[in-house]
């Protein structure tokens, strides 16, 4: 029996420590709706301050668990406190996830690929290359409130700062890699029609844990300006 403040992030979101990123995203949406200040299911149970505090913790939990780097660090922390069972070999990420590529080569059972296979070189790499080791502070990074305009390069920088690969974003948002590239490079001509693009940006923003409305607003302003200038 634990107080809300003592629940770990998995317990708070009511997911198992083995949940996939998608499960966590769904659980977050659900729990956030339950602890919405206007939710009548909480009526008379929690004060406004308490609801706000719970809400903040839910946001923290989501931002920690949705990013693979942060989650791994958090899991390690939980294991130290003996709050999480030791898991055999990262079953918490679905097989299709790019994180497989991060496994040491020895762990993979695949035979080495033959040298000459030109069509593979041309095709998109099946897995994103392992991210470069960045100097990271021991503390779990949370999304810093991004001030400034959401331009394509700014979004890219923000994504890299969070240590999320394009492929992860693509998996989560179901927006194609190519479009993500175009969005980040601001190649407006090659992007789909305005309403679709807006939807993409909203999804992208959610994947990064940013304010979706603000990001889409900023980006679409730039889009409109660029399109007006060219025609």
């Amino acid at each position: 029996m634990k107080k809300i403040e003592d629940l770990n992030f998995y317990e708070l979101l009511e997911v198992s420590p083995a949940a996939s990123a998608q499960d966590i995203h769904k659980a977050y949406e659900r729990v956030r709706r339950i602890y919405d200040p206007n939710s009548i299911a909480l009526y008379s149970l929690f004060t406004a301050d308490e609801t706000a505090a719970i809400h903040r913790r839910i946001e923290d939990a989501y931002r920690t668990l949705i990013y693979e780097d942060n989650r791994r660090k958090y899991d390690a922390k939980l294991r130290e406190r003996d709050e999480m069972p030791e898991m055999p070999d990262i079953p918490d990420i679905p097989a299709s996830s790019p994180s497989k590529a991060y496994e040491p080569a020895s762990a993979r059972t695949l035979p080495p690929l033959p040298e000459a296979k030109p069509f593979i070189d041309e095709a998109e790499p099946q897995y994103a290359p392992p991210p470069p080791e960045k100097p990271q502070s021991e503390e779990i990074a949370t999304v810093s409130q991004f001030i400034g305009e959401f331009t394509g390069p700014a979004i890219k920088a923000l994504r890299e700062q969070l240590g999320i690969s394009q492929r992860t974003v693509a998996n989560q948002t179901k927006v194609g890699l190519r479009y993500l590239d175009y969005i980040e490079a601001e190649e407006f001509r090659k992007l789909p029609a305005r309403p679709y693009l807006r939807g993409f940006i909203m999804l992208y923003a959610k994947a990064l844990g940013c304010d979706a409305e603000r990001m889409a607003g900023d980006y679409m302003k730039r889009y409109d300006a660029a399109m007006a200038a060219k025609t």
Partner: protein
Amino acid sequence: MIELQDALRKKEIWAIGGGKGGIGKSLITGNIGIHLARLKKNVLLVDADLGGANLHTTLGIGVPETTLSDFLNRRVENIQDVIIKTSIPNLSLISGAQDFLDAANPNFAQKTRLLRHLETLDADYILLDLGAGTSFNILDFFLFSDHGILVVLPEPTAIENAYRFIKSAFYRRFKKVVANQNIKDVIDAAMDQKNAMGIRTPFDLIERVKSMEQEVGEILELEVLKFRPKLVVNQVRTKNDIQIGFSMKSACQKYFGINLEYLGYVEYDDCVWQSIRSKRPLAIEYPYSRPSRCIERIVHNLLRKEQLTLSMLY
């Protein structure tokens, strides 16, 4: 399998309560009873809504001659004599209609006598229809039963009362397992939301009790785990209303630390109102209506000891 179930058959007492009045407790009790009776279970309905009984009306029975108050006032010695057979096979009723004005407040001896006699009765299921409010009588019936079922409407008023009901039942149960008078006083004080000791949630209370007597605190923690009320959301109109059950489940887990089981919901439909108007039970007048189907599903969940899961929604 059926033989095995019969061999293991044990009488179960279910209590249906919910704090607020007019949320469909009697209607749900009556119709759960009818559905159970159709499954060839021997069912006894007891209208424990002393002072406001109308379970007989939802079953379409006129004002009965013998009622629970006859038993409570010892005009009838044996509880068998106040049982009325209904027109539905396997279903009988102890009505509380036309009771004495003071029947709403039976004293302790009357209450224990009633509970003792209920235990001796030969029935598969005894359903207690509780009244509104959180008086000790209602709470005791709720705690005495094997399964306590809470009815709520997707409205702030009903939800507020449901939480109040849970809290009151919870603290009353605490008080029953505690012998130490000092701890009893602490529990009493905790009932007051604005108490001076700063006890706001059950967690605070248990911590406080633990600081007084570690063992008693641990017993209370066990009690928390054993207390598993069940939830039915009535008059559901939208998908969001169904969601409220899950939300309450989560909120209860986080606030009280108790496991609320979400049994099911009953959809809103005018046919319920029509069946009450015509004084004929819903499950008989409109057996294939959506509300009746919903109640059927609740009965199945109860029998299988299952509850709704989120995946069923999507």
